[in-house]
């Protein structure tokens, strides 16, 4: 680019700046501020800003970890609840229920051998409700084709990162009771 072109470019840019200043002059009168100083952020200031951001991110991470550690120490006990209709459930079928609260959906599976297993119904991938596949004898997620073992709740394949929440069961006088709910782990042993 020749010096003539460069000088013409500079002139046109400066004239644009003058035009903007002229157009915003009434607003400048009402809300005056130093335009030139406002536009300048020094490298030092930006570096300091990044340092503060780094500190904030570190404090945030430490805060979340501390809260999780405190929550882990609190043992949460859920009251036992009878699962209606569990005794009449046929083998290789499932039953939906809620435990420990109405908002916590769960699924009870009666395996082919007659044993009962219960899990939280939320898929650990993106919380879609899982269903029991009688054909494959496993719990499947319809959203992203994940699957869980009906006996352990472990991930068989697909995107889910960890096993389903396990619900502890107890048979009392022929009736099936849910007595506790355990958070999921990467995969149970």
């Amino acid at each position, binding site marked *: 680019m020749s010096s003539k072109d460069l000088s013409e470019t500079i002139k046109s840019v400066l004239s644009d700046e003058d035009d903007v200043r002229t157009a915003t002059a009434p607003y400048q009168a009402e809300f005056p501020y130093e335009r030139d100083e406002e536009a300048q952020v020094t490298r030092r200031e930006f570096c300091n800003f990044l*340092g503060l*951001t*780094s500190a904030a991110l*570190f404090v945030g*991470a430490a805060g979340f*970890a501390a809260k999780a550690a405190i929550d882990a120490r609190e043992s949460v006990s859920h009251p036992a609840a009878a699962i209606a209709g569990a005794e009449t459930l046929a083998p290789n079928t499932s039953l939906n229920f809620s435990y420990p609260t109405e908002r916590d959906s769960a699924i009870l599976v009666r395996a082919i051998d007659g044993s009962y297993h219960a899990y939280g119904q939320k898929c650990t991938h993106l919380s879609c409700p899982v269903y029991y596949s009688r054909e494959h004898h496993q719990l499947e997620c319809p959203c992203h084709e994940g699957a869980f073992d009906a006996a352990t709740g472990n991930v068989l394949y697909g995107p889910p990162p960890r096993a389903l929440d396990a619900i502890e069961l107890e048979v009392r006088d022929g009736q099936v009771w849910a007595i506790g709910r355990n*958070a999921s782990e990467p995969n149970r042993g």
Partner: protein
Amino acid sequence: MKPLDRRTKTGQTAVWQARLIMLVMINIAQLWILAATVDAALARHYSVLAPLVVASGVCFVITVSIIKWWRPTSRRKTSTGYVREDR
């Protein structure tokens, strides 16, 4: 104080740019670490929380060291107090 020559100013600019780039990269890494920490905390994966917090702390320490101790080499006095001779 002697006015800075062109090479000195170019060197200072390079150091400042390097600092900014490194700080931005470290901030982005800390954002990832924070997202992983939140995910692990909500999923109750307590075993990975400590390493994540340590990693974030290391990033913060590196950030502080870059801000506090990195200096353009053209300055007459170094961060350790050594006084260079005039050219």
